[in-house]
């Protein structure tokens, strides 16, 4: 099992998936609805998690 590849790919997939929070976030502004912060925090946390995951794997790879 190649854990590095799996983590790297999952990180990227999470980062891409976090984009799906942006259209609903935009709608909260357009229609002035509540709940925008939920989509914003979800987007930030997932993209950050995904980003850290990818960077961590790449950093470890550059050390080997």
């Amino acid at each position: 099992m190649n854990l590095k590849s799996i983590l790297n790919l999952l990180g990227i997939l999470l980062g891409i998936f976090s984009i799906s929070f942006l259209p609903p976030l935009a709608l909260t502004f357009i229609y002035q609805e509540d709940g925008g912060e939920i989509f914003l925090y979800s987007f930030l946390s997932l993209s950050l998690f995904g980003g850290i995951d990818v960077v961590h794997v790449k950093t470890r790879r550059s050390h080997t």
Partner: protein
Amino acid sequence: MSRQEDLTLNISDGFIITTLFWVVLALAGSIPFYFFGLDLNFSAALFESVSGITTTGATTITGLDSLPKSILLYRQLLQWVGGAGLIVLAVAVMPALGIGGGQLYKTELPGSHNNQKLTPRIADSAQALWKIYVGLTLSCALLYGLSGMTAFDAIAHSLSTVAGGGFSTHDDSIGFFNSGFVEGICIIFMLLSAASFAVHYAAIFGGKPLKYFYDAEFKFFLSVVGIVIAISILVFLLSNSYTGLYSIISTAIFHAVSIITTSGFTTENFSLWPGFLPYLLLVGAFMGACSQSVGGGIKAWRVLIMINQAYKEILKTIHPNAVLTSKIGTKVIDAKIAEKVWGFFSIYVFIFMFLLLAMLGTGLDFESAFSAVGACLNNLGPGLGEVAENYTAVSGIGKLILCFAMILGRLEIFTLLVLFTPAFWRR
């Protein structure tokens, strides 16, 4: 170790990534549902997310018409992302990593009966799939818009229609629009999304626009839909359930297509239909869509092989010494493939029985439990009895069991079950 070697995936990694993709995304996707103030507990939020990402379309949310547009669009987007699936996402991502993705392609499309890539290079395949998927979505949204839907409804419903999902922005689903034009567009795109993307590819990029008409699996799928429509019309006429031939025909066509393609849109509560019709539709959903499509179910090609094999066995009983071959169209079916199909079916039945007993154990009545497991395992959505309109009647444990069923169905059982075998971890 070179970068290429460092990131090489083997078949085991493919299974793990495919499964993790659905599980992690379902968990992440449940965050807005849990915190949005929809009065959903963890199991209900997870259920909604799993239902979205697996394109099942079962819901625990009521009062959709009064919900903010942002959360409604989010539900639809979840289905669209799920429909695109790992095949498009991972295949599009992996070339950027410089690693091979053949294993993922294989596990994402376990229904594939030819194991051939759509094009020699997997990156090209991803691009082609994206183009087809996005093209279908845009076309659907445009036609919905022309039919009189608001721009929001048109976009939202195109996302779930092309994904074969069935989520709507209204409690009455497609029935809210009360429009034959809308229903017609929905029927066309549900059928297109139930067709193999390999067939779409051949028709659009391969210069074979008539491929739909001579693909054996798609023809068989359409035949089954046609038979269910004919039976439904006959029962409606005999039971005097509707007044007017147009109403009878349009209702029968819409629901037969919606349920058998495992989309799950409705214009009315079909569980109240006369006689055996609700069960007939549910049985149709067990077959489901074609391989390499966004639909669920056992898949038409497997059913076709099982019918062929059964017919062959009957002939062998009459002519014990005859040498017979199974065929789909002009293709001869290898005995190993037929064996795999029967293996899949036996595990499918075993899993179904296990999940049914588990759901009965949560206190659900037999009809509701049977249809809930069938609707979730086949990624259909609406069931019968207490789960005909929504899944609020299901207990927290029951919802978690059904989440497992939906993911099992989306991964066509083997991909997930293989992780529970000791042999897999000894590799």
